């Protein structure tokens, strides 16, 4: 557990048909790992975006690796809509499971707690419900006339994210982004890329230990400097907005996307 490996070894753990939980853009996205995963071309992935995604999901969709997409949104933020996502939707390229943020979080909490479902307020009367056989409406057992949605547990094969640092013992600093911990708790294993690996245990300082994910949940860690690029990593570097805008523009067409991705792969090969 918490083994330190190369980016390629980490990426090799993502295999055909797996359910992979991805972090949202402001929580640390493993973009360098995504480039390495794309090189392996695992098919028919089931992405669970926690609770939304952006360029990462759009790239995996554009490369044809996504069989199922479970998310509350895919957006490039200021750069606009996610073009390969919208194109895939139009062409029915993957099974779409539209969600709402707290329902994805509730599914992960069910996974974390080892229960088959979690109740959640809202949702009833939304068109989301009709396309989600994994969400049901039951009667609140403790009240009359109180229908409530239950969402089934989400138990990803893999949780994947990028964080500022890990220690040699496999512990990872996640800070206030506790949904990363929930992803890891719910997942069978967790793959983490980090800006740096430190020698001292992150649990040694009691004041900051609360923001650390213990090695118990972590399958593999790879060092990847600027591993969230072109996205940012809070406290480390900001999003490369020009690059995201360049992607947004090029990815509007299949050819432009292919050209962008070629350069993207080369950018990471140059580093590795």
């Amino acid at each position, binding site marked *: 557990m918490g083994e330190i490996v190369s980016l390629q070894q980490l990426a090799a753990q993502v295999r055909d048909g797996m359910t992979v939980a991805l972090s*949202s853009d*402001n*929580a640390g996205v493993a973009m360098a790992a995504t480039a390495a995963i794309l090189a392996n071309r695992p098919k028919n992935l089931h992405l669970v975006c*926690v*609770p*939304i995604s952006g360029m990462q999901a759009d790239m995996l969709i554009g490369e044809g690796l996504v069989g199922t997409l479970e*998310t*509350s*949104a*895919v*957006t490039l*933020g*200021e750069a606009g*809509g*996610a073009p390969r*996502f*919208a194109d895939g*939707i*139009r*062409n*029915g390229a993957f099974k*779409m499971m*539209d*969600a*709402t*943020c*707290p*329902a994805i*979080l509730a599914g992960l909490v069910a996974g974390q707690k080892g229960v088959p479902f979690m109740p*959640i*307020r*809202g*949702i*009833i*009367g*939304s*068109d*989301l419900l009709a*396309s989600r056989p994994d969400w049901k409406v039951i009667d609140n057992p403790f009240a009359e*006339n*109180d*229908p*409530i949605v239950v969402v089934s547990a989400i138990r990803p094969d893999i949780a994947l994210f990028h964080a500022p640092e890990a220690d040699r013992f496999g512990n990872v600093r996640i800070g*206030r*982004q*506790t*949904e*990363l*911990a*929930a992803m890891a708790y719910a997942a069978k294993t967790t793959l983490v890329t980090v800006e740096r690996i430190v020698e001292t245990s992150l649990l040694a300082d009691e004041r900051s230990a609360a923001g650390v994910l213990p090695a118990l949940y972590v399958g593999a860690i790879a060092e990847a400097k600027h591993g969230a690029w072109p996205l940012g990593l*809070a*406290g480390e570097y900001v999003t490369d907005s020009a690059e995201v805008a360049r992607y947004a523009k090029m990815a509007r067409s299949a050819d432009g996307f292919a050209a962008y991705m070629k350069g993207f792969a080369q950018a990471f090969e140059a580093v590795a």
Partner: protein
Amino acid sequence: MSALPATSREILIATIADLLDGVRTVAVGASSPMPAAGAMLLRARNESRGRERVRVIVLGSRQHNFFTNGSFELFDATAQGRIDAFFLGGGQIDGQANINLVGTGDYPASTVRWPGSFGSAFMYYLIPRVILFREEHSPRVLVDKVDFVSAPGSSEGIHRSGGPHALLTGLALFDFDKENKRFALRSVHRGGSAAAVRAATGFDYDVPDEVPFTPEPDAETLSLLRGRVTTELAECYPQFVETMVADRAA
């Protein structure tokens, strides 16, 4: 020194502050500078008037977000009743205040696909005062019936403690009548008219005999907005502040 008159954007921001009057805690999205500006303006004004403190949570911001439990906390705090107001938009908003953040055409193969429902299918049900905010006021956005309901404007037979309070666009301000599940035009912004609003709106709504103009910010409000609030905003939304300042010069 007489101040320049309020810009259109400043009127919108001041209107948002008025719509938030009385709330204690308001959350705004990271990419929602106008709602954030309105919330910060209310906070500043309440402080200068010695009224109750307003907490503003800017989601996705590290500095202006005191949450420590990640993505969970907005939704949990909402369900606990600790968040009084929130903003929602939509690619489509219909006359019953249903909102569509998913797309047009036959779901799931939407012709035009938007990002997705985000937290709307939860927040809209539980936030006591949801302000629908969309600058574009056109028949394409304000439709008779949405193609997809990300979240409905009202509900029956379920637990629902929140819902739409008002709809603010670049042209007008509507109240939502929960009884009749209809919007009612409250005011049109400077330079507009009831007829122009009617022409640009794809759904039916109630109209009073006299449609007033949306009130313009008083001198105190405008001074706070151009002073302290602009400084505060600049930390989260530097680009927006630049356009806001450019507006005034124009």
